[in-house]
């Protein structure tokens, strides 16, 4: 397993958003974590990144314990997060945002090559490379957030609600890109409210409800589960 969470309890103050969750992400796979608002999906991501410290439980990445490390150390281990709401640096240019994604790397040639790859994948970012991040549209900001995370050359890429607030055509583009990134060897853990799309591209899926994992399995099996169909896929099959 590339990433393993065992009985993680975590939260904010006295409120525990995660009440003992366990999940594993095999190397090379796409794993989706679906569930309603407030189920604890984003907290799971923040706990992996070290933004929230777990009260109990263990996080292991490549067999090594990860709990208690700071975000920059987690990035150093090989995990990058595309955060919820994109968190683009508004007052810095598109290109500066991308270069900051490669902050911990010092291989100039490799960084330049990866920058070119991002521009090839998202030509609109190259057109706007001198503009401030804050001037981009929502879809462009999402592309920038993904490009920026990829610039770190992570082994595991976490994506938190990448389709939120985007037009359907852009959503499709984003999911194509996620598949594409996975195809080039990066393992993906995806948190989504768009359960249908998330289950389509995933190998494995976990369903979360109020801080617990209530269902898990191969994505196709989870998608076929009647409860999931009723609750997350619009009821019709």
């Amino acid at each position, binding site marked *: 397993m590339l990433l393993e969470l065992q009985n993680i309890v975590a939260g904010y103050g006295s409120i525990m958003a995660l009440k003992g969750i366990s999940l594993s992400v095999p190397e090379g796979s796409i794993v989706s974590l679906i569930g309603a608002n407030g189920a604890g999906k984003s907290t799971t991501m923040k706990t992996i990144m070290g933004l929230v410290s777990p009260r109990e439980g263990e996080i292991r990445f490549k067999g090594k314990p990860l709990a208690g490390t700071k975000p*920059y150390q987690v990035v150093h281990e090989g995990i990058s997060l595309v955060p919820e709401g994109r968190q683009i640096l508004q007052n810095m240019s598109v290109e500066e945002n991308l*270069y900051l994604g490669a902050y*911990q790397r010092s291989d100039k040639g490799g960084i330049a090559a990866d920058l070119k790859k991002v521009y090839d994948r998202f030509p609109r970012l190259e057109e706007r490379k001198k503009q401030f991040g804050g001037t981009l549209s929502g879809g462009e900001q999402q592309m920038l957030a993904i490009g920026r995370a990829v610039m770190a050359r992570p082994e595991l890429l976490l994506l938190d609600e990448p389709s939120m607030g985007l037009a359907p055509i852009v959503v499709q583009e984003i999911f194509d890109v996620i598949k594409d990134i996975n195809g080039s060897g990066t393992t993906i853990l995806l948190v989504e409210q768009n359960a249908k799309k998330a289950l389509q591209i995933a190998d494995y899926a976990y369903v979360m409800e109020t801080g617990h994992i209530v269902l898990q399995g191969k994505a196709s099996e989870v998608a076929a589960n009647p409860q999931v169909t009723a609750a997350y896929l619009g009821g019709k099959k």
Partner: protein
Amino acid sequence: MFFQQLINGLNLGSAYAVIAIGYTLVFGVLNIINMAHGEIFMFGAFIGLMLVTAAGANIFVALIGAMLGGAVLGFFLEYLALRPLRRRKVTHLAPLISTIGVSIFLESLALKIWGPQTQSFPPQFEGALMNAGLFKVSMIQIVGFGTAIVLMVLLTLLLDKTKIGKAVKATSENIETAGLLGINTSRIITFTVMLASSLGAAAGVLVGLSFNAIEPTMGMTMGFKGLAVLIMGGLGNIRGAMMGGFILGIAEVFSVAYGASSYRDAVAFGIIILILFFRPEGLFSKAGKGGRP
């Protein structure tokens, strides 16, 4: 007369600008006002003075020495007064109060070391005065103004062109995002406080040179002026702090020159109140962005 006063105002304003940039940098990464900045400015002036009088150093060597001393003070300020509070998730106001504590400590320490009397640099560049017809410029003014401008240019280059500078900007804009990008934000905060303090100390030497009056209480007045400039320029906006410094300097000098010498501070701060009345977010901040650099 007019041009002469403009030159004097630019000279004073350049020192204010360097002080205000120090406040701005710290405000950017920590969202607090560093109340000890004025006292670090005062220490810079004394360190420069000691290097010139006791060690016989050249004024530029003294300036660099003061900046190094300021950086060391900044390191301890961050390590002892700010970092422990950050670890413990206390209220937002706690670090503000702890910097006030540091400022009182530094002022008392300076009184103990150097005594309460006003001291001054031995005359530098004596008699060198350039006459350009409309106005006269002394060598001290040229050196002071020139040094301030060089410092501002170097700082701008550092922030815009270097990796660590970009990390400072990213940390200022959103510390959580900066961490997620792999930036060790704690180290960036230490670096920023040291950088800001070294600029404050440099301003101390410049002001000490221009006004020939160095005393342990000079930090307080200067600190408040830097603070006013910080707010006038738009909290956390570096260009705003530069421009604000010049506006305050020129306003002060003109109010003295045109007959209101005893109202000099009142006129200067009156202008700031007027500016804030019409632009409460500060002169140079982009509305709606919280005035970040």
